[in-house]
């Protein structure tokens, strides 16, 4: 029997921190707030590490029952926590990266108003995210799911005095509602047909199904609805629109929530419910298509963005697309692998970008940067690591995960592979574009001219503090950067495929979770390693060669992107304008993100608002409800206005009313008596 790990403490600790900071933080000094926040978040991380130390001795999956939450008839939902390899990975990512970003935030937010508020929210987010990844049933998971949405709303709108921030928060929230709606319906369907939301029971029941058996379309429906939820949370087409706007929030938030952890919740959820998806091939295809499209689509947009954070945001979307592509081709472990590496390098990139912004006193527009290489070397080097990682240059982390996904995609269908490849090319292109524009060339900003407090485009004023001019960030910000940089260099090595004479540890580690999904290649490889007869050797080698070939191609694509970026943005900086002018319409379209927002605004938002205003507001609320109230009030007024004349204050008239009343009473009594 497993020892009791008290998993429930892991989510609870940040909650305590949030409660303390939220309740009393106003009176605390900044140091005290920092202490509380870091203490509890770090405690959670430490506990996660301790869990890892215990992990080998556990019989998996390991569930811990804390309390019964809902019991309605046969249906029961508990406060119970579920630990297996997948949730362990997520747990490490969330608590670790989260802890690092907490540290980073201390430096980044030090000058901000509402410091305690920020950390209270951050801890709150940690609580919900950990609940999400540790939940042992869909309902508890949904709590975390909604909670992280709430936290993200609060943090996006952290500078709520800024109109754009507030509306961005609302946008994120509402768009997420759509997804959550799908998720919720999926949960209802599960309850209706399987009478439970507990992972183990549900999956046991479902594993009896198979794509051929009846009820497959039910699973498809459930899977698709779940996917809708995932799209909402993980910013996939068509619900990705909130993520770019979410960059209104403070950069650490963007790093933690909108790059590393929360947006990957969708991927995690899909991976978690792989049992359902595997039995719904149609749904899988949809997931793959959505993933690929999102990846390419976002990448193309990212090419044209000039706001450093926006570029990263779109790259995030496209990377998430990769993950969904992986899930779509049933390579869940690959998806999770990419999730992990992505958490490292994208968190790193965001933090580095934040450091750059910090250095430039709030400047976010890349066109006003450049030549920062020498001025902020640490940021530069860390960012370089991140850039190479995301661009998929070996041996950085991103290379392995992305290559894995591409290879799997190819095995599913070459179209996926092609799109993925082009996406990889584009990714490396715009990332290096960002890299070059930010750190190379000569400085295009105006910060030296009149000290600090320059145009605080993105993050509002607070950066205009003390020392003017460009300055390296404090240690407290740099240390997390370095750690993450290291991670994004070596992070991929846990998953070196056999084709490169590695043993895909990560995939093997996750295998028990996805055992049912181990694809043919995996089987062969295991077979090979198990030394099954020599028959497999030939194709084995061919498959290796093919894989290596594809790897080479993708690396070449990445390098091409690097070269192009160098050519366009360092060598001939005037070239991009020419190109842009040459293919004018397309460039505009890309620049305006394919007018998706406008499209949504016209198709959904505007009709909704107009309908609400005309029908609900003017029609029902004013026309019916208010009208009835007002009308009755007016009627009462009129009646009393006429009756009022009885109250003339004249005693004799009162007496007359009494007299007539008495006469009436007498008449009635006579009538009664005479009946």
């Amino acid at each position, binding site marked *: 029997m497993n020892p009791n790990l008290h998993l429930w403490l892991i989510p609870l600790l940040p909650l305590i921190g949030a409660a303390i900071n939220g309740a009393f933080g106003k009176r605390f000094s900044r140091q005290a707030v920092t202490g509380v926040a870091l203490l509890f978040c770090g405690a959670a991380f430490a506990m996660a590490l301790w869990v890892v130390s215990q992990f080998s001795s556990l019989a998996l999956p390991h569930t811990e029952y804390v309390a019964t939450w809902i019991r309605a008839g046969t249906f029961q939902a508990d406060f119970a926590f579920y630990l297996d390899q997948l949730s362990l990975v997520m747990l490490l990512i969330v608590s670790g990266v989260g802890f690092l970003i907490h540290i980073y935030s201390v430096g980044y937010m030090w000058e901000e108003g509402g410091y305690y508020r920020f950390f209270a929210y951050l801890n709150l987010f940690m609580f919900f995210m950990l609940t999400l990844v540790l939940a042992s049933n869909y309902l508890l998971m949904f709590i975390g799911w909604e909670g992280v949405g709430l936290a993200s709303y609060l943090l996006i709108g952290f500078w709520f005095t800024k109109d754009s921030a507030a509306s961005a928060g609302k946008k994120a929230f509402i768009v997420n509602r759509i997804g959550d709606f799908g998720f919720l319906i999926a949960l209802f369907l599960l309850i209706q047909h399987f009478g439970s939301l507990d992972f183990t029971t549900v999956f046991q029941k479902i594993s009896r199904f198979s794509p051929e058996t009846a009820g497959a379309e039910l699973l498809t429906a459930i899977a698709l609805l779940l996917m809708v939820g995932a799209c909402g949370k993980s910013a996939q087409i068509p619900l990705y629109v909130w993520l770019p706007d979410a960059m209104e929030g403070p950069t650490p938030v963007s790093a933690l929530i909108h790059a590393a952890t929360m947006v990957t919740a969708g991927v995690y959820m899909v991976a978690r419910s792989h049992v359902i998806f595997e039995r719904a091939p149609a749904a899988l295809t949809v997931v793959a298509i959505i993933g690929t499209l999102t990846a390419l689509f976002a990448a193309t947009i990212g090419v044209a963005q000039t706001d450093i954070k926006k570029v990263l945001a779109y790259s995030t979307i496209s990377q998430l697309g990769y993950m969904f592509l992986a899930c779509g081709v049933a390579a869940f472990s690959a998806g999770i692998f990419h999730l992990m590496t992505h958490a490292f390098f994208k968190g790193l990139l965001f933090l580095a970008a934040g450091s750059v912004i910090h250095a430039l006193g709030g400047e976010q527009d890349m066109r006003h940067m450049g030549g920062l290489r020498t001025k902020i070397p640490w940021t530069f080097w860390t960012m370089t690591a991140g850039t190479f990682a995301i661009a998929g240059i070996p041996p950085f982390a991103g290379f392995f995960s992305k290559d894995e996904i591409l290879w799997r995609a190819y095995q599913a269908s070459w179209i996926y592979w092609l799109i993925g490849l082009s996406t990889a090319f584009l990714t490396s292109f715009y990332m290096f574009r960002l890299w070059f524009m930010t750190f190379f060339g000569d400085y295009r900003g105006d910060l030296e001219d009149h000290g600090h407090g320059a145009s605080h485009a993105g993050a509002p004023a607070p950066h205009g503090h003390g020392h003017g001019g460009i300055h390296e960030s404090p240690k407290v910000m740099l240390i997390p950067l370095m750690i993450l940089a290291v991670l994004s260099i070596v992070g991929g090595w846990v998953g070196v495929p056999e084709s490169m004479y590695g043993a895909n540890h990560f995939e093997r580690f996750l295998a028990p979770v996805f055992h049912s999904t181990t694809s043919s290649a995996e089987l062969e490889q295991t077979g090979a390693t198990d030394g099954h007869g020599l028959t497999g050797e030939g194709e084995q080698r061919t498959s290796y060669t093919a894989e290596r070939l594809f790897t080479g191609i993708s690396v070449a694509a990445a390098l091409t992107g690097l070269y192009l970026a160098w050519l366009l943005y360092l060598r001939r900086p005037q070239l991009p304008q020419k190109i842009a002018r040459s293919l004018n319409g397309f460039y505009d379209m890309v620049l305006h993100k394919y007018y998706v927002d406008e499209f949504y605004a016209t198709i959904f938002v505007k009709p909704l608002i107009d309908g609400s205003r005309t029908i609900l507001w003017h029609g029902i609320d004013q026309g019916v409800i208010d009208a009835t109230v007002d009308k009755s009030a007016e009627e009462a007024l009129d009646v009393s206005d006429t009756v009022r004349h009885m109250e003339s*204050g004249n005693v*004799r008239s009162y*007496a007359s009313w009494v*007299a007539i009343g008495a006469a009436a009473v007498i008449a009635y009594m006579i009538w009664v008596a005479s009946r």
Partner: protein
Amino acid sequence: MVPLSYYLVLSGILFACGVTGFLIKRNIITIFMSIELMLNGVNLSFVAFAAQWHQLSGQVFVFFVMVVAAAEATVGLAIIIAVFRTRETLNVDQVNLLKL
């Protein structure tokens, strides 16, 4: 021998006169007198019924009515004095406002 109904008719006439006085008179004091008139009419019917049914309680009720009338007259006249002190008039038609 007088039928009971005669007394009742008499009391009814008195009562009606009282009501009429209340309706047509303008002077507060006169109106009060009209009230007294009504009470007297009622008293008459009380006594008549008492005699009719050989029930002394009717007469007892007359005493109560008298006491109430006395109290009412006392307070009413005091009120009249107060009103006159503030408004310089006894005409109810001019005493139709709650506040001055």
